[in-house]
């Protein structure tokens, strides 16, 4: 674990900064990553389900009019 953290410090260039600056950067990065994970957890399944429904209706229900399709929630 310590070696991985060392690699992270070297690659991002944080290695040269003072410890309090490193903490600031780590906090900001961690917050951003946490927000990305939360958003994807909450919204990605619903979006994927809606997309699948849309495309399956398109393939199966060809005779149906487009108006009926668009009025579906």
């Amino acid at each position: 674990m310590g070696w991985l953290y060392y690699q992270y410090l070297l690659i991002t260039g944080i290695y040269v900064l003072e410890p309090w600056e490193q903490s600031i950067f780590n906090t900001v990065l961690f917050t951003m990553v946490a927000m990305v994970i939360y958003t994807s957890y909450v919204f990605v399944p619903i979006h994927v389900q809606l997309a699948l429904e849309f495309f399956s209706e398109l393939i199966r229900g060809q005779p149906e009019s487009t108006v009926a399709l668009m009025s579906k929630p």
Partner: protein
Amino acid sequence: VQKNGKADGFHQPRVRGEDSFEEAPLYVAVLTYMGYGIVILFGYFRDFLRAVGLEKCHQAREREEQKDFVPLYQDFENFYKRNLYMRVRDNWNRPICSLPGPVFDVMERVSDDYNWTFRLTGRTVENVINMGSYNYLGFAENNVDFLKTVAEETRQYGVGVCSTRQELGNLSIHEKLEQLVAEFLGVESAMAFGMGFATNSMNIPALVGKGCLILSDELNHTSLILGARLSGATIRVFKHNNMQSLEKMLKEAICSGQPRTHRVWKKILIMVEGIYSMEGSLVRLPEILALKKKYKAYLYLDEAHSIGAVGPTGRGVIEHFGVDPKEVDVLMGTFTKSFGAAGGYIAGKKELVDYLRSHSHSAVYATAMSPPVVEQIIRAIKCIMGYDGTTEGQRRVRQLAENTRYFRSRLKEMGFIIYGNQDSPVVPLLLYLPGKVGAFSRAMLKRKIGVVVVGFPATPITEARARFCVSAAHTREMLDKVLQSLDELGDDIRVKFSRHRRSYRPELYDETDFELDS
């Protein structure tokens, strides 16, 4: 008197090994830019804190009365120095307390406020292997037997000369040195100066002036650039070692002449170096000589790093390619690197050197070289030429060539990106990322190896590197220790970026597992 290794001028011109400038994978470039971007953002943040007053400013700043004047410390160089260089400053200017031979002692120093101030702890780190000094032939030594003549000359002449060469400073030992240098290089005459940088910057203005054209290589040293700018001639830069670029410029210069008046150029001078110190690449001397003859230009060859270090008998890049030294118009070199002294020389035809004796700033105004330094150069040259009756000089030249080949081939095998020609003792190892530069130097010092790391502005900002200078005084064990540390450190810090296939040799074992008939 035993003379060995006399260059007779015309060997078969040797095929030059190719320079390698391997490019790193794309992700390395992306990560380098990202790393610099993040640290620059933090630089702006810290500058803001200093401006607001939340943090004490350690660096010089303007006084209150000058706040409305043109700002002094806001350009990128000062910003870079304050926010990037200061953070890793402990890797440079390390105080050394012994002779800079193959091993040396470094004084330990710590910083309490992140490199703004240092204090020495009083301890020294002993027997650090020296991979940064320009000690190519190992003449930086304090062996009493070798330095006997130096001590005698100091007893005779003293140490200070107290005059310039033109006034009362032309000692007989200077005449001896110049004759010896001319004989060593195989030219008519030579002149020695006290400082290598000043040799370039003060003599080029004496050779060219307004109405002349200077074609200089992209990666020339600062002393050449300064001399060219001081002379007032027009300067055009061609791409590094690129003969098509040089030929195009020569053709265009001869066809169109001077910029506005289209008069013929008074002189065209091509300035190149023997070995480029940041890349380790060799000049393409045969092609440049062919171009020079075809277009009737003059050639200024700066052999600062290559004299004594390449060539079968140590006579520099001219001997390496088997070229006649009389074909190069101005040969320049320094005594700092392979000869373990200080100073520079210019050699060539007798008329040229006599002209420089009276018209060059360095010859007229600079103090003459100090006698012990001159004697050190004389003894080093005599050792290389064999005049002292031993083959020690030739042994050192061969040892350097062997060490160079071994070191370079092992590093390539390990998978590092190395620039330059396979025969040059200057070995740059590319690190690229800004975080790894500081980490590499500190980790090597912890393993008791002293290296020089270079970053912006001496190199392009994305190509930070560590530069090793192989020496004839390094033994095989020292090189093996360095290579082993580099292997471990390369895996630890992950700088083995090379994409060429490495040869996998099986480990050598001490015992054989079969019976030998004895």
